[in-house]
């Protein structure tokens, strides 16, 4: 491996000196997240055991990406290094130092061809999305060929073929895709309206080794979408259908027990003008889990995901509002009478309003209000758990409730020095239905924060949060202080205190102290503290992390 890195380095030398003399672009980035896990006698789990560091207490995830572009060509390569091992609970397939992805691309106005690894998304991604999220350990790039062709300025045709990345390897299965999009505004020269329509096909071909097989190796999926807007009003919809396929309920158990098709319907509409916005989304999913290998369903590392099904709830930024996080429920799980799932149905509503400067509520500097609601239920219907297993769902009917969230956020700038924000969040989280464990958690959270500017670049931010919860770990309190010394140095201290826990030894403090340094495109951060066990979520997709304690160092830069 060392040789490979040296080779890349050396091969870049002529490229670099060359790129400074003409129009070629040389760019890239480096990111490193390192953690030194420590033993912590004071951090107890539910069985009163202290936290001990894992094997290989010093771990880091490192990524180096370099890209070279010249005229219509570009070439890129990404190396990844997990030493001594990947951070806790990352995909165990991330276990070495090696070249992870690479590509060559030729792009003109009409045609765009990529060979190697590429990222792609059709529509909203309900059938196909390949992307990278390092914090979650997701990189499901496709390796193969992608061709994007624009025969006319209002038609875009994408075709993809490839195998999906998993760890430092790719799956044996093949993925085919076609996506056609028409921009009818351009085609018909609409003046005040926009209209686009699109169609997609995605096929996954995976050989399955069953003596008798009630489904095809190749699973076909189709989608249609339309998006329309007129002045301040907009509406869009997407319909997806996945043909009959084995329903996998437990990781790696692919069989003929239940063979069903899947579907998804997404509807979004809204109206917005200056100072006011409203947006509503409805989504129904039935048996829409889609992996590049069937058996991957239920894996803990977001490995081999083919589609993107985020939970449509507000991505909360306060600490305590991220303890009970909803995860979308596209899959089928027929466990017992009280726990049957075939998908989800529900919606989300957002409202934004700006009280203008000079009005009664707006005061001298205005006031901004954001209101959000979301509610998600299981599908209802008839479920047969044994012999043979089956279900029939009703199209528009609501089964058991998974989750609801109602929240309001008010931000106000008082003057050039003071700014404050207040939030109230009410959540209902059905642990039994979502996680397959037990119980229901009702919680109320309030959060208040204030920022004070001492000088143009020196400021302090203080946040206080409290959560009342009736179940599981019960009440929490949290405080954060963030001090920005100047535009380069920032320091923070935060503590989450589970004071309401019924088990006295589990009334843990999850504290963290740290600082960061930024200059131009570089940021370095160092911190010491405890990590609360649970879900870490980015963009509606989550990763489970265990409790831990230690020192972390992260660095990122781009060039």
């Amino acid at each position, binding site marked *: 491996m060392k040789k490979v890195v040296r080779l890349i380095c050396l091969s870049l030398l002529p490229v670099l000196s060359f790129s400074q003399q003409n129009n070629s672009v040389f760019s890239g*980035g480096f990111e490193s997240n390192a953690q030194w896990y420590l033993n912590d006698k004071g951090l107890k789990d539910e069985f009163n055991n202290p936290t001990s560091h894992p094997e290989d207490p010093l771990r880091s995830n490192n990524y180096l990406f370099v890209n070279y572009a010249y005229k219509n060509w570009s070439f890129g390569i990404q190396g990844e290094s997990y030493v001594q091992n990947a951070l806790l609970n990352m995909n165990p397939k991330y276990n070495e130092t090696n070249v992870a992805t690479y590509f060559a691309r030729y792009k003109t106005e009409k045609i765009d061809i990529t060979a190697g690894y590429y990222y792609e998304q059709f529509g909203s991604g309900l059938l196909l999305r390949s992307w990278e999220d390092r914090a979650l350990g997701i990189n499901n790039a496709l390796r193969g060929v992608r061709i994007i062709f624009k025969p006319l300025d209002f038609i875009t045709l994408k075709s993809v073929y490839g195998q999906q990345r998993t760890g430092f390897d790719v799956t044996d299965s093949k993925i085919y895709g076609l996506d056609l999009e028409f921009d009818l505004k351009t085609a018909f020269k609409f003046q005040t309206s926009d209209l686009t329509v699109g169609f997609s096909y995605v096929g996954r071909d995976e050989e399955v080794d069953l003596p008798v097989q009630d489904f095809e190796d190749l699973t076909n999926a189709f989608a249609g979408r339309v998006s329309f807007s007129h002045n301040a009003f907009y509406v869009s919809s997407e319909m997806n259908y996945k043909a009959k396929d084995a329903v996998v309920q437990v990781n790696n158990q692919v069989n003929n027990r239940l063979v069903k098709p899947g579907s998804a319907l997404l509807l979004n509409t809204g109206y*917005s003008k200056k100072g006011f916005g409203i947006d509503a*989304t409805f989504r129904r999913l039935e048996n829409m889990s889609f992996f590049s290998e069937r058996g991957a369903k239920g894996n803990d590392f977001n490995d081999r995901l083919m589609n993107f099904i985020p939970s449509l709830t507000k991505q909360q930024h306060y600490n305590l509002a991220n303890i009970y996080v909803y995860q979308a429920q596209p899959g089928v799980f027929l466990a017992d009478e009280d726990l049957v799932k075939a998908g989800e149905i529900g919606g989300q509503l957002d409202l934004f309003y700006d009280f203008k400067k000079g009005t009664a509520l707006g005061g001298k500097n205005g006031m901004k209000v954001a209101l959000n609601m979301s509610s998600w239920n299981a599908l209802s219907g008839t479920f047969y758990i044994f012999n043979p297993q089956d279900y029939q769902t009703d199209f528009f009917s609501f089964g058991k409730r998974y989750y609801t969230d109602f929240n309001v956020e008010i931000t106000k*700038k008082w003057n050039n020095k003071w700014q404050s924000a207040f939030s109230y969040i009410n959540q209902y989280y059905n642990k039994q239905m979502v996680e397959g464990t037990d119980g229901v958690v009702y919680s109320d959270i309030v959060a208040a924060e204030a920022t004070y500017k001492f000088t143009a670049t020196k400021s302090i931010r203080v946040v206080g949060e409290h959560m009342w919860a009736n179940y599981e770990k019960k009440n929490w309190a949290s405080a954060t202080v963030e001090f920005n010394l100047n535009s380069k140095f920032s320091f923070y201290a935060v503590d989450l205190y589970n004071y309401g826990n019924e088990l006295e030894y589990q009334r843990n403090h999850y504290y963290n102290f740290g600082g960061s340094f930024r200059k131009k495109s570089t940021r370095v951060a160092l911190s010491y503290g405890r990590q609360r066990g649970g879900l870490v979520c980015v963009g509606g997709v989550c990763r489970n992390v265990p409790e831990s304690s230690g020192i972390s160092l992260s660095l990122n830069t781009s*060039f």
Partner: protein
Amino acid sequence: MKNFIFCLLFIGINLNAQSNLPNVPLTNLEGKKVSSTADFSEKDQLYVFSFWATWCTPCISELDEINDLMPEWKKEVDFKMVAVSIDDSRTQKRVKPLINGKGWEFDILLDSNQDFKRALSIVNVPYTIVVKNNKIVHVQNGYVPGNEVELLEKLKSLK
């Protein structure tokens, strides 16, 4: 690991501070396809590209602040503000009502599958770059209150 760092330093030393903006296809809020280079190439015009997301609080603070100050700044220096949303399909539908609700007066671009973000090797938002003649002339990784003052100074010096 050592090799990685060595390689990085090596590249860093060899690089020009001024690098060209990559050409990435994006869409605007009306669904129209926009090029990151061709559509922002007016000669000597300063463009500020600020990468943000609806769920990113410091991003919103930064853009709120710039939006408030923009009328005053424009008296001192001419620049165009472009807010590039890296929201994925989970939160992208909130972009339009949010920017209107907030009354932001920027050009908004959607980087749905984060191709632009990746092309610039951006790890986290907020991330702000200043572009002149399709060259990146200034980079700001992150945001703390007060960074906007430095941004204004930088813009004035680049005029």
